[in-house]
């Protein structure tokens, strides 16, 4: 069975950004938490709630459908896999994602898309994020 990233307990989130820093550091070699495939942010400032913008692992991902070269292809369990060498940098995926969670880095050549690798989960001190087992797509 494949696993996908979920954010089942965001009410516990303290906004420490350790998850984003882990994704940026380990997946993208960047110090910048903006260069992460998930984004934690506040709704209504710190008096409001903390929310997670994550890839929801669509079974029929619009981003992959929009990709003209097939650089993005549906992943077992949902979401997509990126073959960077096939990406032409058109950003159609960014426009296609219904939740707006594909990020195009400034001056970047390929998108930042979630791999559902679970590194962020390992650096969450409060159990806000989790990896969930899901049946493989048919």
């Amino acid at each position, binding site marked *: 069975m494949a696993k996908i990233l979920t954010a089942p307990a965001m009410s516990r989130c*303290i*906004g*420490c*950004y*350790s998850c984003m*820093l882990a994704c940026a*550091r*380990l997946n993208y*070699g*960047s*110090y*910048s*938490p*903006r*260069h992460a495939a998930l*984004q*934690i*942010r*506040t709704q*209504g*400032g*710190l*008096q409001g709630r*903390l929310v997670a913008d994550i890839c929801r692992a669509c079974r029929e991902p619009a981003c992959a459908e929009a990709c003209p070269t097939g650089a993005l292809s549906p992943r077992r369990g949902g979401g997509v896999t990126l073959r960077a060498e096939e990406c032409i940098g058109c950003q159609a995926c960014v426009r296609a994602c219904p939740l707006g969670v594909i990020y195009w*880095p*400034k*001056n*970047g050549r390929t998108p930042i898309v979630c791999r559902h690798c679970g590194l962020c989960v390992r*650096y969450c*001190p*409060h159990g806000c994020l989790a990896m969930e087992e899901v049946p493989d797509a048919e």
Partner: protein
Amino acid sequence: MLNESYIRVLDVDLGTGRVRALRRPDLQRYLGGVGLATALLTEYVRPDLDPLAPEQPIVIAIGPLSTIYPAVTKAIAMFRSPLNGELGESHAGGRLALAMRYAGYDALVLHGRAPRPVYLYVDSDQVLLKRADTLWGMDAEEAGRVLRDLEPGRGHRSIMRIGPAGERLVRYALVNCETYRHFGRLGLGAVFGSKLLKGIYISGDCDIPIPNVKEYNRVYTEIYRRIVSTDAMQKYHDLGTPANVLALHELGALPTRNLQSGRFEGAAEISGEAFAEHDLMRKVACSGCPIGCIHIALLRQQFGDEHEYSWTGISYDHELLYSLGSLLGIASRHGILRLLDRVAQKGLDAIATGVTLAWATEAADRGLIDTRELGTDLSFGDVEGYLKAIDAIVEGRSELARHLALGVTAAARHYGGEDFALALGGNPVAGYHTGYANVLGQLVGARHSHVDNGGYSIDQKPRELTDEEIVDGVIAEEQERNALNSLAICMFARKIYDRPTALAALKAIGIPWTEQDWVDLGRRIYREKVALKESFGFSYRDLRVPARFFETPSMRGRLDPQRFAQLLELFNERLNAIRVA
């Protein structure tokens, strides 16, 4: 700058709108944070001019480890203080360090006076001065809400703003940073106000590549594990600093009713334990810190029959529960939260407000002032009176209100009652009456703050200390903290960032400093701060301690003025040696 051999400074002239982004390799030797800010303040400040003169700079600096290591979350502001006329320094958490880092600046220097109210907009591509006429007059919460709606970048931005207190130049006005963190001490809010600067928006999204992911990840992860998996920081994320309230009361070290006592009969009611059980709503963190020490209480207020309620989240800490609690004789958590809400909206430093009101209460009792000028009576424990007094002070409604807006030291100089005005070096004191090291530490500390050198902690050593141990302890700790604050770590993580850890963290990002470099930096900053203070007219030979600190027994018993004079004499000997070294 990470991966570069220079410090990047954004210099903004608010008067002309001229903006310069400067590369300063010469400042690398200060690392960042306090060291960098001290160097820039020395360069820009005008000791010959009033603290609120347009030419005076506001310096805000971060350090090389900011955001990219756990709990390295502070931004350091330095300025000439309008409260005591000398070295202004204040540290704030929140998201400012992150926003500056990824906007691409190690330091901001703002000077000049805008021709009309403005806010400064900074992102990684542009710097703009935007009109703030309509924001002028708004309280800190409303101004924050409007700026959040107007500007982009949620999650990666910092929004600083002042409230009415800063606009009206109350000398202990603060700068609010992300609602729950503040540049609280020594009046930065009034400096903003004097420049017609309502706020600063900073957002950053630039990519900064990691040269050595493996080594950096190893050091990062080890620090992260020590923070989240050991009990090194348990105090801060459990009850938080309010755990001190009951503990200090039991030691006789909790300043109560303007330090007429070191014990408060209402301590249990306003303790960290009671807040956690009854009022704690959630905890949040500064960006890049897994601890989550920001304790937020629910203030629920009934505004109508038929169970009509409003709610607000109020952050609380030991210093706030002391200054607007025990020091004012307030044994009601609800009452304290209402006062905290009021000072937050107005944009006032809670410690200075509490100390000023406590002095005014006692001064009125003694017939030195007539509080009818504030439109209210003041008596210890009376929340309604204090709420009215805060409004009157901010609005400057009377001569008395305007004197109180200048701070407790200035007010006592005018009306009398200096013996019970609880400020040291012109800065209202923090919530500890532990002994000699606490009083000495705040008196000789560069910013007259309890966290300059942790004197209150030195006092709590299990055995009696000699004069040498007290004086040398205060100096050594301040020098060490100068180096740590150049990294701009949160002081709550100071036990995590011991010297080997700090040096390893630097090395893993390509800054190979030695222990000797580290020690030299702490000393150099110490000397440079002393020089700055003296350029502002401060004299270590002419220091006064209000009698109240000697009259009311501390945790260590009654303090002896003669022994204290000896400590000061010894301190001056040591200082002379530091000057010539």
